[in-house]
């Protein structure tokens, strides 16, 4: 399928879209460019960060296509910071490890996860807290201002999206994917948690060329594979 056809078929204004990647690597820049050729806007983005200015997710920021973003860090992109301060983009910060687990839960049919990360920080605001009672051998819900008696956790809820743009190093035409080095990052978890999965691959090979044991994301969850450009600079 062509990249513009894939965007036309699965993407729409107001969609929740997962955009895995870490700064500039593992980002589906070809698919993002295709979105920018359409009028699709008001995106609800779930990503770790927003690339740098002028690259990848940074282009969606620059063209004001993003309404809300859930991420852990925007420090690499001064334009995102400015638009957040100006109120042009709404932001929800989630610790990076919690972000992965929320998405993993969303893709794995799990109702939520308990993490110690963020307890007694602003990350617990508005969330349910559980504390382990060693004597009773059970969890109980606690309020943030209660004295802590046992190991405490935040109940983080799952995340799910309409569409995910997955960046593969190699994919076969069925959608089986191999990631490369640290470009793998969020792609593997995010690929599991959307209604429609579009894979942008640097290299597309025939079915059978990938060994079943090296496949990191199986093709049966993938809706479309499109040709992406080869990453030449980080």
């Amino acid at each position, binding site marked *: 399928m062509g990249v513009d056809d894939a965007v036309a078929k699965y993407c729409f204004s107001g969609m929740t879209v997962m955009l895995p990647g*870490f700064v500039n690597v593992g980002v589906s820049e070809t698919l993002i460019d295709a979105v920018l050729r359409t009028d699709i806007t008001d995106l609800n983005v779930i990503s770790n960060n927003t690339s740098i200015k002028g690259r990848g997710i940074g282009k969606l920021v620059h063209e004001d296509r993003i309404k809300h973003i859930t991420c852990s860090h925007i420090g690499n992109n001064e334009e995102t*910071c400015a638009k957040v301060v100006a109120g042009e983009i709404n932001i929800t910060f989630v610790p990076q490890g*919690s972000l992965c687990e929320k998405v993993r839960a969303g893709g794995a049919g799990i109702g939520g996860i308990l993490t110690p990360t*963020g307890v007694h*920080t602003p990350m617990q605001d508005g969330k349910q807290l559980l504390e382990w009672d060693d004597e009773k051998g059970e969890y109980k819900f606690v309020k943030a201002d209660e004295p802590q008696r046992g190991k405490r956790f935040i109940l983080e809820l799952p995340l799910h999206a309409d569409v995910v743009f997955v960046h593969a190093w190699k994919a076969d035409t069925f959608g089986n994917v191999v990631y490369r080095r*640290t470009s*793998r*990052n969020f792609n593997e*978890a995010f690929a599991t948690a959307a209604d429609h999965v579009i894979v942008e691959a640097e290299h597309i090979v025939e079915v059978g060329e990938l060994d079943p044991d090296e496949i*990191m994301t199986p093709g049966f969850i993938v809706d479309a594979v499109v040709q992406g450009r080869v990453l030449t600079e980080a």
Partner: protein
Amino acid sequence: MSELTGKELIAWRTARFFQDGNIVNLGIGMPTKCLDYLPEGVDIWIDTENGAVGLTGAPKPGEDFDPNVVDAGGRPSLLRVGSACFDSFRSFGFIRGGHVDITVLGAYEVDKDGSLANWMIPGKAAAGMGGAMDLVTGSRITIVMSTHTDKTGSPKLVEHTEYPLTGYKCVDYFISELAVIHFTEAGPVLEEISRNTTVEEVLSKTGTKLILPEKIGILEDAK
């Protein structure tokens, strides 16, 4: 004995906590200076939360590199022989699961219990916490390396933090150009001072009470 001063001395002393074979996560900026002062015979493995253990640093000009390998700041890096790459959820599983030995990072403030604030100043635009909250929660040892006071001369080590927390009771050691402070159940202990200072000076530049043990070591004499 170290002849270094300032941030170099802080990095040198911090690196004295590393043991051969440790998995170490170094925050962006000053913490990476520790690599310049590894103790002799100590070989560590650098964890990067974006999904690898075994980073060695930026390629030299003209050196071949793979653009798919970046550090936690998104900059190109090289991998050593024996390194491994993995997805982000396993990376943070390793971090929260206690498989990272040491995390080194900076601070706006640390309170008397070792609670850390380093991600957000109220009223200013926040860049986000990235992986810091997970790292300080899950690492076996969390070290804050920092100047003893901020640019205005205010103590970094305080009774109660003014800024929102990154982690609660998570810092094990605070290392500055003046002192090494160990956070224990009893409170913060002044374990070492620089030979260029006095206990009185350290206390005057610290915003909370410190426990003074019978013997206080000299920071520059650390092995």
